[in-house]
């Protein structure tokens, strides 16, 4: 077993798997069903799915159901989650955890209601952090287009107080860059939270993931590009480190 959770983060757009950079310019990377099958064989412990189109097009339950039925591992789903009813349906079709993004900012009572109804362990709030025009790192929402005045750590704490059982920290500035993760930010958040923190955005190597866990204090780390791209030409090739590779990398550091 890996000492910490390593979660491939997959983006959906109209039933297609895509990969973005800073949440922009989605590039097609394949059929999600086939990708899930490959991740099954690679014995991935859990997956995160984010539908970047669901906020406008609605949640495609039928397609998600199909993906879930193919997956051997638990799946967290985010994208377009606005009502308690959405969350209930997602659990019914087999989703393990529901990620609330924009709705957590716009109607925070959804977080407390969902948590009370379904248990906090299955309710995740996503905190998207991006640098604003003035050079300050702020919480953004609505596909990283709108800005919140509140500090990221304070916002995450408020969400936990409302009942979020897990926080996923998305670094929009680094998303898709593969240039490494923002360890101070991860650290400040992991230290301030009493619930598991999933750090996401910027991982370009297994070492980056280990850093986020070891020095950032994240309980789990998530990556998109790292698990779907290979080499300098960003060839699409699904990959995932074996337990032995993680252990080997760890013992090298010790």
């Amino acid at each position, binding site marked *: 077993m890996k000492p910490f959770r390593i979660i491939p983060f997959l983006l959906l757009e109209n*039933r*297609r798997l895509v990969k973005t950079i800073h949440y922009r310019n989605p590039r*097609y*990377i*394949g*059929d999600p*069903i*086939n990708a899930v*099958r*490959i991740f*099954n*064989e*690679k014995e991935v412990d859990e997956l995160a799915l984010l539908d970047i189109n669901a906020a406008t097009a609605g949640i495609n339950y039928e397609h998600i159901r199909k993906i879930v039925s193919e997956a051997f591992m638990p799946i967290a789903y985010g994208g377009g989650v606005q009502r308690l009813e959405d969350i209930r349906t997602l659990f019914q079709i087999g989703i393990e955890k529901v990620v609330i993004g924009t709705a957590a900012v716009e109607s925070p009572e959804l977080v407390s209601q969902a948590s009370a109804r379904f248990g906090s362990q299955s309710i995740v709030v996503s905190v998207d952090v991006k640098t604003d025009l003035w050079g300050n790192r702020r919480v953004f929402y609505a596909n990283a287009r709108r800005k919140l005045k509140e500090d990221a750590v304070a916002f995450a704490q408020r969400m936990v107080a409302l009942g979020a059982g897990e926080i996923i920290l998305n670094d929009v500035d680094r998303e898709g860059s593969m240039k490494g993760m923002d360890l101070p930010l991860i650290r400040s958040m992991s230290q301030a939270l009493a619930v598991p923190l999933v750090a996401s955005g910027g991982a370009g190597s297994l070492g980056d993931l280990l850093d986020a866990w070891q020095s950032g204090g994240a309980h789990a780390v998530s990556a998109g590009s790292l698990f779907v791209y*290979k*080499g*300098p*030409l960003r*060839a*699409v*090739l*699904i*990959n995932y480190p074996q337990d032995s590779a993680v252990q080997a990398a760890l013992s090298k550091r010790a």
Partner: protein
Amino acid sequence: MPSASFQRCRRCVMDTSDPEIVFDSDGVCNHCHFHDQIRSRYILPAGEREKALEQRIRRVKAEGRGKKYDCIIGLSGGVDSSYIALKVKELGLRPLAVHMDGGWNSELAVSNIENIVDRLGIDLFTNVVEWDEMRDLQLSFFRSGVPNCDIPQDHAIIAVLLKAANAFGVRTIVRGLNIATESVLPQAWGYSAIDLRHIKAIHKKYGQVKLKTFPTCSILELAYYYAFKKITYYDILNNLEYDKDKAKELITAELGWRDYGGKHHESLFTKFFQSYYLVKKFGFDKRLAHYSSLVLAGSMTRDQALVALEKPPYDDDRMHLELNFVANKMEIEVVELERIIASPPRRHTEFPSYKSLLFSDWATRIRKFLK
């Protein structure tokens, strides 16, 4: 099933399941004769072969001078392409590995590719075909009833390799075609994947999704790549010692390669298509051609081939699962796939193609006019 007219070649193992097979008075088939003809042309005697290899490699290096890569290799994760990757590196070439992802990759295929590019330090370039388009085109071929339903994938590979060669300014595409393992290929069992007119005709009749990004290559583009950009293929395996079992051992040891248990089974589609679809619908068992090639190349005896052929081409229990898998993947009901398999076979010649264009009415008229 051996019927009254059943006949098997006395030299290779091809039989009358190839409707166009012809036997000479000794009971030796046309494939054997064809093999002998091309073998003498492509397989050089020892000594000359090494010289030819050396010359060609020198030329490829010279043409690649000043460029990041001097050749393109297709990489599927199968034996041929993995072995080629190893060999071109040994020969000091700087290859760019190109992979066409048609949506059917197995985990074995992707992990083999990963190991190869990691261990050999090769850059990888991929083209992922939009699944909706690939699916629709493959379904079109299924629905048309023609035997070669691997044309969509094969055409996409050809197109992607050429486009990559063009984009990276590379002139040589090192290919895995070889006399040692694939000299026998009955015409009636398939049709060329290069024929874009044929593909479009079948898609137009049976397809539903517009092909917007599907990688294609028309005759004009081919002419441009070959004649103007001077892109050429190098079938390197013909200039190397190529024994599949030895190659497997080598790539397993050197590249951490894992076996699929079948020729070209790195694609789940090809596996289903070759070992089930062709057998069930047309009575074509590709193993006949494959083993025949091996027998003619001397890497398998005829008796070994006959013993191997006694095993069924597919495992009935597993095929039930695969039928479900393929139907599910192609987003059709299992009964529809079964209906497709049960529907009457059609010939490729029943659909338009570049070939038919050459013999079409107006072509004849023009030819007459020119006379």
